[in-house]
């Protein structure tokens, strides 16, 4: 089976600054792949190169089997993306946001109607369909944004810190949603800096200063670094003064 994502020495430089420095990895289909790192480690830049928003400086990568240099538009048909910045229109209602994104992904009207019903039922938001998004609590908005990002049933979904600023209960619910989609075969590429969330991932890569410092299952990483939790693994890797090969 072809991997969902491959990256080979993928690099992005902005002038003198190297945001992402020769990262290489593979993500299997249906895998929940965690992308960990401190703020500014290069997680978002890496995601933006994979989903076609940013052209890599060098290196190779494929997403859903397509090259990130030549076939960005084909990739865009097969992926979903939930950016770190809030990406729904706050001055539109829940319903209007669903219709708009369904529409520009080219879903037939019938499908949009059907999806809308299902999506609102799953989120328990039936009575908020006509509420402006700006008046929803953050946790609800994030769950809605995720549901809209996967409305067109992408093969791979990129989630950039989807649970930032969200309460623990909602984060839990959010991860249940992620698990449900992964079980149905969707590949999940998720960045976070909550170390407890790292435990939920199939495999985790830890980025430090634009490089991948470690990549394995949470269990193997904990053994490798003789740590009790992912938190300790992370601190071990990112502790000031520590040098990486």
């Amino acid at each position, binding site marked *: 089976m072809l991997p969902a994502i491959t990256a080979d020495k993928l690099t992005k430089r902005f002038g003198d600054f190297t945001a992402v420095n020769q990262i290489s990895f593979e993500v299997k289909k249906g895998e929940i792949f965690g992308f960990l790192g401190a703020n500014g480690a290069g997680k978002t830049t890496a995601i933006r190169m994979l989903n076609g928003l940013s052209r890599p400086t060098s290196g190779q990568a494929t997403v859903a089997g397509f090259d990130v240099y030549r076939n960005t538009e084909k990739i865009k048909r097969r992926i979903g993306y939930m950016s770190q910045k809030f*990406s729904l229109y706050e001055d539109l209602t829940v319903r209007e946001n669903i219709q708009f994104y369904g529409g520009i992904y080219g879903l037939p009207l019938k499908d949009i109607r059907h999806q809308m019903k299902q999506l609102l039922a799953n989120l328990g938001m039936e009575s908020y369909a006509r509420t402006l998004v700006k008046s929803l609590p953050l946790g609800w908005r994030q769950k809605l944004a995720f549901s809209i990002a996967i409305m067109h049933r992408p093969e791979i979904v990129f989630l950039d810190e989807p649970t930032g600023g969200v309460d623990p209960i909602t984060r839990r619910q959010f991860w249940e949603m992620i698990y449900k989609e992964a079980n149905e075969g969707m590949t999940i590429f998720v960045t976070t800096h909550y170390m407890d969330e790292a435990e939920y991932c199939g495999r985790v890569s830890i980025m430090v200063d634009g490089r991948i410092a470690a990549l394995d299952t949470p269990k193997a990483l904990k053994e490798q670094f003789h740590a009790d939790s992912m938190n300790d693994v992370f601190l071990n890797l990112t502790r000031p003064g520590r040098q990486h090969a």
Partner: protein
Amino acid sequence: MRTILFIIRKEFLQIFRNKVMLALIFLMPIIQLIILAHAADYEVKNINLHIVDHDLSQYSQRLISKFQASKNFILIGSSFTNQAAFDEIQKGEADLFLEIPVDFQRNLLRDKKAGLQLSVDAVNGVKAGLANAYATAIIQDFNAEIRAEAAGPAASQASLTIASSNWFNPELNYFTFMVPGILVLLVTLVGMFLSGMNIVKEKEIGTIEQINVTPIRKYQFIVGKLLPFWIIANIELAIGLTVGWLVFDIPFVGSLWLVFGFAAIYLLVVLGIGLFISTVTETQQQAMFIAWFFLIIFILMSGLFTPIESMPPWAQEITRFNPVAYFVEVMRMVLLKGSGVMDIQRHILVMLSYAMVVNGLAVWNYRKTS
């Protein structure tokens, strides 16, 4: 096509949800039209006149009453020293003063000639020139009168009179002249600001990322952004013309279809420039400054306030790239003179090419991948 419709629907939802914007788009231009049409008047009335009469004779009184009878002048004061008159001008109270010297009447009667002094505040050159011309005309009129009296009726000389007739705007009505032009400016302002702020606003709030990660085509995005504002600007033009007709009695000599047909192409140019600005900038503030830069040049060089023919040759060359100048001219030609398609075919061709270039640039410069 379907994708474009979804974008248009979304833009309209957002515009109509924002009640403040709605008022700005539809109410403000109408208020501006009514105010500006009354204010933008080249005729100089109400020139404040100060008189220094050293003579205090019958003739000086006659001259003063001729000034008082003129609708162009308001006599705001008189004094007996030039210093007092200068002070009035310095304070901005008086626009000009007329000095009638001692022995004005005596010199006129005895020597058949006398001097008068007119001092004009020329800070505003246009106003000063006109004030000077009006005052000179009144003095000449006065001069002719007393010469006729002195020589007696028999001696009236043959003189040449010129009868002029004003075509297309026979009463030289400034509303007729200004309102179509002001309307062009208002539609342009609203159109360029709406489109110029639009894409960059999505950049600021971050929703553009979400659009760029979809398989949407660049032209679909630009067309979807352009059409809502195109429709709004056309409606705005229709409202403005209605106000012009009801309030200012603007004659519609030519075809309204032609006006709207031309406006349709013209608006593609204006909105295209706006969208292009939106694609090159990162914040609404930047977009606003760039839009203003172009608008100020376009408006001041549109031929609305100063005739293009009286600009230096290099400036006239620049106006050939000014879309506003074309529309102002077409509005006046069609509405006031009744010009037809053939008369404005050059304007149409230029606008069509302009529209293709700027919208092409906007699509080309809009980047889904940075």
